[in-house]
């Protein structure tokens, strides 16, 4: 910080942080207990004390592009020991949420995700969309088959079909009979591309910002940005992320580590399942539902159960933990994750119970939940997967100790 630094308080930013779960930030009196209490704060320029004063002053530029806010795992040790009840852990979480909004484009969508009044719209659009696709699939399958044949009939030597169903599929419950797999993919492939592009644009700015901030605050020994070395560092920290090493250093909320790990691994499991299914379908021409004995089915089931239990435990922790603030942004994402896991499991159970309409209903919910998760990934709290991993990688790259 230069000697003649003139702070530019941004009152709107203070209000924003308060609204995102950081109501207590003004209670801080800069005792620095939190910086010592934090089990993962580095020796040089530790957090979160300096973030607390920056937040009090509304110094947005010192917070949004500050990688330290992402090193925090919101364990709550600092909040526990804070003599003023300023809840620095919750304030950092609120700042992270603001940072996600800041880096995301389009801004309007980012704002809508933190706004409870926009929830009906955010749920309603995909709900209507999937309902439409279901109607087309179920009522106009024949027409679609013809259109499809006319368009691609001879491609790949006639191996492409509209329907992915097995022989005699009218008699089994197959979800492609409800919403065509083509439709599902036509929705989610562009959604995934959209999310990736948003993340790409965000990271381009984010990485430059966190580097500039680190140079300015003397938190790195690197003067220029070497993207290749940074990428290597990001790869280096992935085992640490998977093992929850940092998470496990926390005292106050130790019990948060296990459910978080369950959810993370569940997503990794489901990602593998989705990838394998895609390959089986498009390369092997083998469509679901797969028999229960298929190993991919085991993985899917284990991951699904772990997702439901993990996110269920998180919700329970949030409900019972009075020392940690739970804001709308937290409920939004927890709700979606839980709904995604639960609807997936219920879809399968209803299918096995051979109640077709119920299974299709749950599948519809499931599709909405998946859409919420993917389309809003760069805008919701879920974006922490990307930002935190990059920030941890940057800390490794920058020799932040």
């Amino acid at each position, binding site marked *: 910080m230069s000697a003649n630094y003139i702070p530019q308080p941004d009152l709107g930013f203070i209000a924003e942080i308060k609204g995102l779960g950081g109501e207590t930030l003004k209670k801080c009196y*800069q005792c620095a*207990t939190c910086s010592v209490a934090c089990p993962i704060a*580095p020796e040089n*320029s*530790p957090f979160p004390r300096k973030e607390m004063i920056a937040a009090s002053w509304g110094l947005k530029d010192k917070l949004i592009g500050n990688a330290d806010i992402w090193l925090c795992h919101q364990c709550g040790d600092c909040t526990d020991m*804070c003599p003023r009840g300023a809840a620095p852990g919750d304030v950092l979480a609120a700042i992270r949420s603001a940072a996600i909004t800041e880096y995301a484009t389009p801004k309007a969508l980012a704002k809508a995700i933190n706004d409870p009044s926009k929830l009906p719209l955010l749920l309603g659009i995909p709900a209507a969309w999937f309902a439409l696709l279901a109607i087309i699939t179920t009522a106009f399958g024949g027409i679609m088959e013809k259109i499809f044949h006319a368009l691609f009939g001879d491609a790949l030597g006639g191996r492409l079909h509209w329907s992915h169903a097995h022989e005699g599929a009218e008699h089994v419950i197959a979800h492609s009979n409800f919403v065509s797999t083509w439709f599902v993919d036509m929705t989610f492939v562009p959604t995934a591309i959209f999310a990736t592009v948003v993340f790409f644009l965000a990271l381009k700015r984010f990485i430059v910002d966190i580097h500039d901030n680190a140079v300015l605050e003397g938190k790195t020994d690197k003067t220029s940005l070497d993207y290749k070395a940074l990428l290597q560092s990001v790869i280096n920290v992935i085992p640490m992320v998977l093992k929850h090493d940092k998470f496990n250093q926390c005292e106050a909320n130790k019990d948060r580590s296990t459910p978080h790990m369950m959810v993370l691994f569940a997503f990794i499991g489901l990602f593998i399942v989705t990838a394998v299914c895609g390959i089986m379908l498009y390369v092997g021409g083998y469509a679901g539902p797969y028999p229960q004995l298929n190993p991919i089915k085991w993985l899917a089931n284990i991951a699904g159960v772990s997702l439901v239990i993990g996110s269920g435990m998180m919700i329970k922790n949030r409900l019972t933990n009075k020392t940690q603030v739970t804001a709308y942004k937290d409920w939004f994402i927890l709700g979606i994750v839980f709904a995604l896991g639960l609807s997936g499991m219920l879809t399968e159970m209803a299918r096995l119970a051979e109640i077709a309409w119920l299974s299709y209903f749950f599948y519809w919910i499931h599709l909405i939940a998946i859409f919420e998760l993917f389309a809003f990934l760069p805008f919701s709290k879920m974006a922490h997967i990307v930002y935190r991993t990059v920030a941890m990688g940057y800390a490794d790259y920058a020799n932040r100790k």
Partner: protein
Amino acid sequence: MTTENSAPVSGSIMVVGGGISGLTTALEAAEVGYEVFLIEKEASLGGRVTQLKHYFPKLCPPTCGLEINYRRLKDNKNIKVYTLSEVQNVDGTPGDYTVTVKSTPRYVNSNCTCCGECEKVCETEISNEFNFGMNRRKAAYLPHNMAFPQRYVMDSAMGKDDREKVKEACKYNAIDFSMEESTFDLKVGAVVFTTGWQPYDATRIDNLGFGRYQNIITNMMLERLASSNGPTEGKIIRPSDDKAPETIAFAQCAGSRDENHLPYCSYICCLASLKHATYIRAQYPDAKIYIYYIDLRTPGRKYENFYAKLKADENVFFVKGKVAEVSEESGTGNINLVAEDTISGEKIRQTVDMLVLATGMQPTCAIDKPAADLTFDDEGFIINDFSKGGLFAAGCANKPADVVTSNQNATGMALKAIQTLRR
């Protein structure tokens, strides 16, 4: 002095607690002609200031203020002092209270000359609470050299054999084990509570290690170590090995300004640590002193000047950042402490010979609530409700304060008590 039920005189004032505030209240009221009952729970008057080595900011010994007050007290027939006594109940309305007082026996009468023979022969030893348990004393003892009344006490813990021995040793027929506990009523028009403060229990400040590591002491313990009438005869040495400390750190706001402990500022602990730096500097000119603080609170011109003087001292270092973690260096008994220096933004890990916790004051009435129609704030201080009148509080029973402020407050409350009687 009376220990029995003396006939109530209309228009008397009771003062509960004989510390510096209580003495002032009692004297101010008595010297303008009112009868005053001064009730003190301990065997001696004087309160907490008797445990200090020096008063800031002038750094004179507490005898300075106390001696003159004791003289005024002796000269004044209007004050009746009840030591080893506590108020059990206050009944009635402003101008007309009935106070129930319980007195426990001292087993020593006014014949005592403080010759000390009883102490020599007594074998029973008890923990010396005047020195915060840092040493032991005989069960026949004089509370301290500034005791008022200057009279020995026989502790009830004394064994049968010892009781025989001390009686035999006393040439003045001063020891009387037939004395009994008594409860009696006094009629007064107003009561002023000057029950003072207790050092906040440092064992409750988990992250500061008091009680776990020997070389972490409290500021009041340091007062006793530095006092010539203390457990080490005034030598500041560390508890684990009696070593003269070369580096000493102070942790300010230990248990004060903390929602998990005392939420308020205790007002005096910044000045106390600055004063303690002068004790150490005088004894060990080369010792290094580190004061870890959030903000240094030295209100007023005199206190600011006092701070300025220490700031200029090359062996006193001020670090802006609270000590938040401590541990013990294995083998040496040294203390490792961790803080963030908020000026440089670096974490500081320092190893010191001794760490002093600048603990604050908790009102005595927060721990031992008087049975009277009083209003308390959330922290247990007594709020002066002048619209109700009759019952008042002065000194540290009312707010955390230094001696000067306590005395000003006490004088004011003496006047409030008088006004109650004259309505």
